[in-house]
């Protein structure tokens, strides 16, 4: 074709066809396409994969039951938080419903010394890192902007501005390089960073800049995109003209699409990507092909922009049911186990609810804290002004 084009011999009609094909929106893949890595079918049947089997072969039955427990418990936390929002206890909530496997699979692939940079929906990753779910709720309840120590669990604060954290992750990875904590072969020392973002974020300049910086620096960072098909109300075809994982090639590093509702496959693919990063082989883009079952946040209404048939299709791909049927028919877990996890989930939900309701409001004066490390005359003057103003009410006997 290109020879003809150069020679000017292509018919106008043919050129139109080629052009139409090249500029057509990304086709509706629906199931992620044949290129998608999958180790468990939606029915829970194990699929062999010569490249990725090795990353799951050492998982014990207990590990697999652990994955299941993670999936169920974080879904329970999410459901409780959604309910709390509906009851006015949270200002807003960003549900992870449907994306549990993408988060648990990738979160469990991390080592303690790895560092995660989340967006604002990574409740499952936070769970895997050991961050108390109540800390997540605090942000949405409005008592703080995070409240956990990022360096305690190597889990950064949630980032609301879309995609900004991918640059922070890349810079952090450049720091790991300078610390010599890459490619030493010491599994306790070699570290990597994982940056979470959604399909919508791939349009952001920051995300594309982070790809450039990571590539030219060969930085140990994994870009983990949860393609949940919707950027609030914008579907994939309004966001991209090629499958997202293919973009990585243009930046000079590998991209892989994994079934984001298959916890085993996500675990395997993320392991491989993190291993590559830790051993000095640079970044990988992982596109976890999944679906946001609920709203973007409790503030939107997905019935206005998508059809229920689509949701039904994805219900069939539910990450929890998939793993459960695998555990059942391989007899890796019995009913007593599933019942115990249910009970644990109920208890956790109660703890989350009680914890949320008893969360103290911050003291008003605390808003003047932690703005600067060193004392700042304007902040201090306003702090005193504020205190004096409120003290005036007390003296008047009011308030």
């Amino acid at each position, binding site marked *: 074709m290109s020879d003809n084009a150069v020679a000017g011999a292509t018919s106008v009609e043919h050129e139109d066809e080629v052009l139409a094909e090249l500029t057509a929106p990304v086709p509706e893949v629906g199931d992620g396409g044949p290129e998608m890595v999958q180790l468990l079918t939606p029915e829970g049947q194990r699929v062999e994969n010569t490249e990725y089997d090795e990353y799951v072969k050492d998982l014990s039955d207990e590990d697999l039951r652990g994955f299941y427990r993670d999936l169920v418990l974080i879904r329970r936390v999410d459901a409780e938080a959604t309910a709390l929002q509906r009851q006015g206890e949270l200002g807003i909530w960003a549900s992870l419903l449907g994306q549990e496997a993408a988060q648990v699979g990738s979160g469990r692939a991390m080592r303690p010394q790895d560092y995660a940079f989340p967006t604002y929906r990574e409740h499952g990753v936070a769970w895997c890192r050991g961050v108390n779910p109540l800390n997540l709720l605090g942000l949405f309840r409005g008592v703080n902007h995070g409240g956990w120590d990022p360096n305690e669990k190597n889990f950064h604060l949630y*980032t609301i501005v879309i995609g900004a954290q991918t640059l*922070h992750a890349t810079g952090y990875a450049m720091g790991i390089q300078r610390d010599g904590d890459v490619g030493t072969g010491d599994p306790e020392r070699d570290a990597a960073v994982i940056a979470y973002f959604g399909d919508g974020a791939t349009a952001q300049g*920051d995300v594309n*800049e982070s790809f450039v910086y990571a590539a030219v620096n060969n930085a140990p960072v994994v870009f983990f995109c949860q393609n949940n098909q919707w950027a609030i109300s914008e579907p994939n075809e309004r966001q991209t003209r090629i499958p997202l994982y293919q973009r990585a090639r243009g930046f000079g590093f590998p991209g892989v699409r994994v079934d984001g509702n298959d916890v085993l496959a996500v675990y395997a693919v993320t392991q491989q990507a993190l291993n590559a990063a830790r051993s000095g082989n640079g970044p990988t883009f992982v596109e976890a092909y999944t679906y946001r079952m609920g709203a973007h946040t409790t503030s939107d209404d997905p019935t206005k922009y998508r059809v229920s048939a689509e949701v039904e299709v994805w219900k069939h791909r539910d990450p929890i049911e998939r793993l459960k049927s695998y555990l059942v028919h391989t007899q890796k877990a019995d009913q007593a186990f599933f019942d115990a996890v249910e009970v644990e989930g109920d208890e956790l939900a109660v703890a989350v609810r009680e914890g949320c309701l008893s969360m103290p409001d911050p003291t008003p004066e605390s808003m003047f804290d932690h703005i*600067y490390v*060193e004392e700042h005359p304007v902040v201090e003057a306003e702090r005193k002004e504020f205190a004096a103003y409120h003290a005036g009410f007390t003296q008047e006997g009011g308030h």
Partner: protein
Amino acid sequence: MASMTIAKGINNGLRAAMERDPKVVLMGEDIGKLGGVFRVTDGLQKDFGEDRVIDTPLAEAGIVGTAIGMALRGYRPVVEIQFDGFIYPAFDHIVSQVAKMRARSLGKITLPMVIRIPVGGGIGAVEHHSESNEAYFAHTAGLKVVCCSNAEDAYWMIQQAIESDDPVLFYEPKRRYWDKGEVADVAQRGLLEANVVREGTDATLIAYGPMVKTCLQAAEAAAAEGKNLEVIDLRTLSPLDLDTVAASVEKTGRAVVVHEASTFLGMGAEIAAALQQRCFYHLEAPVLRVGGYNLPYPPSKLEEEFLPDLDRVLDAVDRSLAF
């Protein structure tokens, strides 16, 4: 004491900071082999290596965004933005991330980073190379904003900025880069202190960065006419050292604030408001402002009309004295 240009002062200051602390890294476009478009980082990559003097891709959000990550990992990045008008792609990272990280982490995170920005006009450049955007950043809590005006401060303030655990925007007056001055062996004052660079009794000129020299020249000219002007180099714009400014204005009773940025909602507006609140009974005249006009920075053939010069400063002094 040593004599050097402002550019060399910053260069020497960066070198001293890098020698003292291996966690100090420089990041920016063209700062390595080229030494920056103004050669401020000249020779540093040769001596400290590519891992510490990092030539970055051409993307300002990327420079500041990755510097945030480096700081989170325990480094002290000093980034160079090539020109003031190129800071805007990084604006989001500075005001939404750099400024807020400490507060939103309830003090768990500090971001000790310095963002160096050559500021101001007067060099005959094309558009977007002569902006004065300090008010945007001074308006944002969580940042410190400082501006040097001479070699002494260039050398010491850059080191103090790097040592600060708070993020600092460090403005450098680009048209004064090649002005020479003496640099003392020890810092003469802290990063957040204004400096009375000329004592006087009749009125106070308040300036920073490139306008300090202009104001000193104006004071010289005024002295020939028997007017005795005090000149204050603010040095720090956020936080403002209002004590030093107010003490001077209470003494002279008159104040003229001079900066290159447009006067509307510029630093002069804050200073004038603060002075009338604090020094109302000492003022003999309203606080006057001399600044750029409220226009986009004009083509360079017109910049001498746009920028405050000695005559416009003296004209304002006359108006103040006439009250």
